[in-house]
C-alpha cells in the first residue's frame, strides 16, 4: 500500500517521475512524507491495493454458462484486499503477506464473461480503518461516494486494472479526497 499526496505527484513534474511515483517503486513510499501545507490536513491521497477475487464466495441470481463466467443479471462479488506487491499475478499472496481488507459489491452484470462489466455498489472494508464505498460501472474507474471511520465523507475515485487474464486479481488505485488526514 502506498499513500502519495497529489501535490507531490504534481510537483514531480515530468512524466517519468510521475510514472515512477504512480507505478510505485519504493521511491515515494520510502520518502514517506506527503507534502502538505503547515497546519493543514492531507486532503488528497492515493493508496494502492491488490484485489483478489473470491469466486467460490461470489454469487449470481442466474445460472452461469460456465463456472468461470459471470452471467448477466444480479450479482454479488467478494474478494480480499492486499498490499500492492504482496500478491503474485496469479492472485496468490506472498508468504507473510497481510490481508488488508475485504471487498464486496452488489450490482447487475450487463456484459457477461470472465471479466464481466457491471454497474454496482462497491465496498472496500479496510480492517481497523473503515469502509470506503464507491458506485458506478466497472470500466476504468468508479466514483467514491463516501465511507465510514477514517473515510467518512470521502470523495474521489477508484481506478483499477486487471492483473491477469483470468480476472482473479486486480490492481486498485484509490484516489481519496477526504476532509481528514487518514491514518
Amino acid at each position: 500500500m502506498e499513500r502519495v499526496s497529489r501535490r507531490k505527484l504534481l510537483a514531480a513534474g515530468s512524466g517519468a517521475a510521475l510514472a515512477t511515483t504512480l507505478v510505485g517503486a519504493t521511491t515515494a513510499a520510502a520518502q514517506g512524507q506527503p507534502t502538505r501545507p503547515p497546519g493543514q490536513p492531507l486532503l488528497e491521497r492515493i493508496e494502492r491495493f491488490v484485489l483478489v477475487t473470491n469466486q467460490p464466495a461470489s454469487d449470481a441470481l442466474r445460472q452461469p454458462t460456465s463456472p468461470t463466467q459471470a452471467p448477466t443479471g444480479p450479482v454479488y462479488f467478494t474478494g480480499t484486499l492486499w498490499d500492492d506487491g504482496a500478491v503474485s499475478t496469479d492472485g496468490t499472496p506472498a508468504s507473510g503477506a497481510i490481508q488488508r481488507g475485504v471487498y464486496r459489491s452488489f450490482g447487475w452484470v450487463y456484459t457477461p464473461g470472465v471479466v464481466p462489466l457491471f454497474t454496482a455498489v462497491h465496498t472496500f472494508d479496510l480492517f481497523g480503518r473503515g469502509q470506503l464505498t464507491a458506485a458506478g460501472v466497472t470500466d476504468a474507474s468508479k466514483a467514491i461516494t463516501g465511507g465510514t471511520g477514517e473515510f467518512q465523507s470521502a470523495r474521489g475515485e477508484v481506478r483499477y486494472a486487471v492483473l491477469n487474464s483470468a480476472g482473479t486479481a486486480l490492481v486498485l488505485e484509490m484516489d481519496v479526497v477526504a476532509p481528514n488526514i487518514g491514518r
Partner: protein
Amino acid sequence: MERVSRRRLLAAGSGAALASAVIGSGVAAAQGIRQPGLPLTDWIERYVLITDPGSVGTARPAPQPNVLPTGPTYYTGSIYRDLDVTGGAVASGAAPVGSFKVSAWAYAGGAAPQLVGIGSFDFAGKGKVIAMGGGSSVGSLAVSGGTGVFDGVGGEVRLGLLAPGNPFQLVADFQLQGQSVGR
C-alpha cells in the same frame, strides 16, 4: 428527532453530559453551536427504523419462516423519533417521520442477515439521505448524499439493535456532515 452539533458534544465534556446530549432531551436539540458566519457542518440525528416484515422482498425463496435467503433483497419500513419507541412498541399517537427503502444483496442469510447495498431514508418535509455499504444490523453505512436539507451531505449512519435478537427494529444515528445547517 434530535440534532446535536459535534462541537457541542465535545464541549459537553463529562460522560453524563455527553450521554444527555446524545440520548437527547430537548435541550441539546434546541441549540446547535456554530461559529459566526459558518454553517453547522456536523450534526447527529437519532431515529428508530422499524422494518415492515410483510413488505420484505427476496428473489430467492426463504428456506424457512423468518430466515432470509441469500441473494437480492428489498426492505422497507418507517422511521420514528427515537423517543417515540420504547421497548419495541411505538408510543400511542406517535407518527412516523419518514420511511426507508433498502435494495441489497444478502451475502449471509439467516435470522440476522449480512447485506451489501444501498438505502434511501426519506424524511417527510425535509428530504432524503442516501447511504450505502455493507454489514449487518449492527455497523455503519456511508452517507453518499441527499436531497432537500440533506443536499450535499456526507457522514455515516451507525446502526444498532433496539432490542437483542430483533433485526427488524434498529436504532440509527445519522452523523451528517453537510454544507447547510440542516433543518
